[in-house]
């Protein structure tokens, strides 16, 4: 092989490189160096356009130390407020995951190109894209405006977020299915519901459940933050502690959130492991 290559190279008058280099991701050197130069230029541009108040940061750094000093030891004395907030966050996450799972099925089926007519597909896909583009907090503002402050707005926000996430995954999963089974079941003259039960659900169910469990884990993480705009949960308590400079209580809340997310992630990994 090598000798053949060398022979061919010498024929084409291309010298065999003396030194070995690792293979680069972008082969063309002009593109590669061009990209590096462009990146550096961008960073210079970005750093100069950002208005950073350096004197404010200089005065802020000692404050950072002060905040950390005031954070330890964490203050767990208001544990009833803490557990109530955490419980509310968990309940928001559970309720949102449940309804999200259910609502995602019709939306996901409508978003699969190989199942539904084109107009339905386009409508479903545009709903998914539209809701996906906006951060949960932006959606939460609207629900807070419509339904008032409290956990209801938080639940509805996370239902929207979970629905479009699970639906997107489900739709992609259905689109990636091999066409054979679909054709075979259709050839027997099966109706659409039968197609769903005997062809789609056996293939899509394991992944759908896996994605839903993952979403539960993500909802626990997000439920801690929708409270910042008044949509309930521990986030509301946390934001209040920051504005009231109760940093030791903030740390206690943060530690609880980390613990909660850790447990949620462990549970989600365990369930997904069993599903496989």
């Amino acid at each position, binding site marked *: 092989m090598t000798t053949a290559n060398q022979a061919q190279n010498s024929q084409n008058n291309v010298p065999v490189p003396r030194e070995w280099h690792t293979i680069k*991701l972008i082969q063309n050197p002009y593109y590669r160096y061009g990209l590096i130069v462009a990146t550096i230029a961008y960073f210079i541009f970005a750093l100069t356009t950002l208005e950073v108040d350096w004197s404010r940061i200089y005065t802020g750094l000692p404050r950072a130390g002060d905040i950390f000093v005031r954070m330890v030891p964490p203050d767990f004395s208001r544990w009833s407020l803490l557990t109530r907030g955490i419980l509310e966050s968990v309940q928001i996450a559970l309720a949102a995951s449940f309804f999200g799972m259910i609502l995602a099925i019709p939306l996901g089926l409508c978003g699969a190109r190989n199942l539904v007519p084109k107009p339905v597909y386009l409508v479903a896909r545009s709903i998914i894209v539209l809701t996906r583009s906006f951060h949960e907090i932006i959606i939460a503002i609207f629900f807070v405006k419509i339904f008032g402050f409290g956990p209801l707005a938080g639940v509805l926000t996370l239902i929207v977020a979970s629905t479009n996430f699970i639906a997107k995954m489900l739709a992609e999963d259905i689109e990636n299915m091999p066409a054979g089974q679909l054709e075979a079941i259709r050839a027997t003259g099966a109706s659409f519901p039968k197609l769903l039960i005997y062809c789609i659900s056996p293939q899509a169910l394991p992944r759908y459940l896996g994605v839903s469990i993952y979403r539960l884990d993500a909802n626990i993480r997000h439920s801690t933050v929708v409270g*910042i705009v008044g949509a309930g949960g521990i986030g509301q308590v946390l934001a209040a502690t920051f504005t009231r400079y109760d940093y030791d209580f903030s740390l206690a809340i943060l530690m609880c959130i980390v613990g909660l997310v850790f447990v949620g992630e462990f549970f989600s990994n365990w369930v997904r492991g069993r599903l496989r």
Partner: protein
Amino acid sequence: MTDVKHAKKYPEIWQRFTPRETLLRYVWYMSVVGIAVWSVSNLNIPWFYFLDAHVQAGDLLTRMWPPAWGYVDQLLGALLETVHIATLGTAVTVVISFPIAFLAARNTTYNKATWLFGRLILVTSRSVNTVIWGLLFVAIFGPGALAGIWAIALRSIGFTGKLIAEAIEEIDQGPVEAIESTGASRMQVLWFGILPQVLPVIYGTVVYRWDINIRESTVLGFVGAGGIGILLYSSVNQFLWREVSVILISVFIVVVISEFISAAVRERIT
């Protein structure tokens, strides 16, 4: 195996699940529904709010229309700042998460303690939402883009670090052993044996996270950490809904463009 059992194994009518499995499935279904009911009932949801929800929503929509297009001029600077926050935050993430990923991968870490330490950093970073990191950094640096950049960076470390660490754990040991056998130093093994194998994953993960970060940085302004969120928050608080709709449209455009770029780059890498 006795005859009776044999007969049971091949019943007249084929069923996918045994009665025992069916029962177990129904127990699972019931418990899931039970958990959902328990959660909803404990949240004390005022159901009568739903009665006039459509009126409220309709009212909001009529107030948002038509968008106040003249507001676009003041918006562009903030939009650019949002993109800068996301990009610079991602850049900081790359620098920090890289060594932590090696610490958190079983095959490149030093010992059990360092592995645990790496994992702990990644979990902590991931559990705290970007906006909460934003709260913390606004308290330290004061309001502005710098707090936003650090908030984005610290939240992303967990995400990119975890995915890179998983990629490192799944590498082919062949090239690593080959390079070790030449008497290469630890750094050389890392550079020539491990890095080329995980580099595509790193690029893909970073670009993907950048796309997520664009979306995250649109709300950082709610806690004062810079970007378009500041304008959105003030417009919402002043009930200037026609400005809000302009901001939402611009956010939508930026997010869709970034998603498109990220998808295109990832498709070319893998």
